[in-house]
């Protein structure tokens, strides 16, 4: 990792004071104990704006220790300015090691994607969450949605899905598809594509979700059931990339970004997970074609 920046003097390790970190850790424990339940917490202001990842960042700051190796991605990329900015804050306030290699990271903070490489038990994935409440689509009031969760009253969200099918013949929700966690709480998985939803189901790693502006923390602990809401006769479907492959590494089993050529206007696709793509590309160039074939290590929902 090329980032070599001095730790900024005058700030506590990981920016937040210890009292605050302890409080956040207590809330995380509660979230892990009740999978999918939104735990309120007193979100702090950080030097990045609310709506720009402060929830995820507070989780990362509360969890990170000097021995951690951290990876930060936005839209699947380590190099998007917002990811760079968050990594910069982490470096300036902790001095920990960072990496782009998914396999080498102990703590991964992400916005809008789950890495294609399957995560392991000792890794934690921290999601930045803009809207923690999956029922907000049907009910604006927080008091009412908390009551609906308490009573497991999800019929209005189901009606929303039913009406979608009646009107459009399929469910029109793109990203941020609501899921049922451990058979009890309906949860907003953050705006990840549907492609990533199956990766949450019985995942080996800890998944933590932080909403800074809305002041909520929730979690999917390892090996927990995560089921997208679907009807018996209308199955959940991930995004289709039929007949398309990555122009860089040739992958047909990863979520693809669609690019439009500046000059010709032609479309091509590349992996959204840039680190995964680079790893495959390197394998290909070292070992020749065929080496980059899917190894079964990917967890692409479309496979």
């Amino acid at each position, binding site marked *: 990792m090329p980032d070599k920046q001095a730790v900024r003097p005058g700030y506590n390790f990981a920016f937040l004071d210890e009292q605050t970190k302890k409080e956040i850790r207590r809330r995380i424990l509660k979230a892990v104990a009740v999978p999918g339940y939104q735990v309120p917490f007193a979100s*702090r202001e950080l030097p990045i*704006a609310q709506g*720009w990842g402060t929830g995820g960042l507070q989780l990362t700051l509360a969890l990170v220790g000097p021995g951690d190796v951290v990876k930060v991605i936005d839209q699947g990329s380590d190099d*998007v300015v917002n990811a760079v900015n968050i990594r910069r804050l982490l470096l300036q306030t902790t001095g920990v090691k960072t990496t782009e290699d998914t396999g080498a990271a102990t703590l991964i903070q992400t916005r809008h994607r789950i890495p294609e490489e399957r995560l392991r038990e000792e890794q934690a994935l921290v999601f930045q969450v803009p809207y923690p409440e999956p029922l907000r689509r049907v009910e604006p009031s927080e008091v009412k949605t908390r009551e609906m969760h308490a009573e497991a009253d999800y019929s209005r969200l189901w009606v929303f899905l039913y009406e979608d099918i009646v009107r459009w013949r399929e469910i029109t929700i793109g990203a941020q598809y609501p899921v049922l966690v451990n058979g009890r709480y309906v949860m907003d998985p953050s705006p990840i594509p549907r492609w990533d939803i199956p990766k949450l189901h019985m995942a080996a790693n800890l998944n933590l979700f932080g909403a800074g502006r809305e002041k909520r923390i929730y979690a999917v602990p390892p090996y927990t059931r995560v089921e997208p809401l679907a009807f018996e006769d209308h199955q959940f479907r991930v995004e289709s990339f039929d007949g398309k492959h990555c122009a860089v590494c040739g992958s047909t089993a990863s979520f693809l970004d669609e690019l439009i050529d500046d000059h010709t206007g032609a479309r091509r696709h590349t992996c959204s997970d840039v680190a995964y793509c680079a790893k495959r590309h390197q394998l290909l160039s070292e070992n020749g074609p065929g080496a980059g074939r899917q190894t079964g290590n990917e967890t692409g929902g479309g496979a």
Partner: protein
Amino acid sequence: MGYVPVKGGREAIEAAEDLVRYFRVRGGSAPLAAQQIQDQMRLAVDRVMGEGGLYAPFHAAVALKQAEGDTVEASFVLRAYRSTLPRMGYSTVTDTREMTVIRRVSAAFKDVPGGQVLGPTRDYSLRLLNLELAEEDSRQIEAFLARYRPRPDGGERPRSFPKVVDMLRAEGLLAEYATKPEPDVIPDLTRQPLTFPASRPVRLQSMARSETGGLMTLAYSSMRGYGNVHPTLGELRVGYVPVSVPHRHRAGSTVAIGRVLVTEAEIIARMDETEAKTSPRFTLGYGLCFGHNEIKAISTAVLDRTMQNAAGAAPAEDEEFVLYHADGIEASGFTAHWKLPHYVTFQSVLDRLRRMQDLAGEEKTQGEDTDDAG
């Protein structure tokens, strides 16, 4: 390489930061001293202290300089700075009756005991653009200061006054609050999550940090008729109140650690409907904020009262609506976040739209087939 909107990394961010600095100083004028901002942009500093949730005039002045005068941005910087400060303790309850008043007006009575104190206000100034200020130099300022004498009947002389609401209470015209929260059970919004229904102390704390314009808009919506409580300004005060903390070693005694400038508004509103069965009384809306910020204090007081309307349906009467939407740091951050890349979610939505179009196409083709068959 063509336009690459999101990838670029550290160099791009650093270049942007340099450019921001360049835009601030490229005019070549003398640098603004933070002290100048603190002295001469007094109201902006006060506003930033309130919305930033930190009483620190000098830091607020630096934040304003850093933000090139954008009060929302400056408040954000101050609040982020505040997050790094440990909570050392809590002050004891401050009684605003002990306020050293610099300004005090009441709209409720023609002649209020203690008298109206206009203080430093522009309320009755003609809003003519004063071009002489463009030419103001330090000699003129010195000459003015040499000439200026505080008025014998007021001016800067510290004064305290009886409160208008105390007089109304003594006459039994004002409802007493059922419970006065004990100081040690008052929740701390910066350490505990905001949940609903929110208690009154939490509402008042939340509004004290809210954005002035946001509160004003919501309060104004009530004044225009969306949940009107027909307020009368009982009393508006601006002044200094002492801040004390419990003594570390001597239980029961306190130590004064300084004073803060605050603006306090008490509005008297119509009778409470739920108490119609007992003798009718006025109700009170209360607002207090850091610094000299009258619009904010009055708006807070109006909203404090509107949110007490249990059955209200107007936005200003809905505590979730008011408290969730008036915080300037939250609202500005989320409004700005739309500038972040959203191309993964957009790809996902695009997938849905294309699928719907395919389905619609199929339906149409099928329809045509049937027509052919018929």
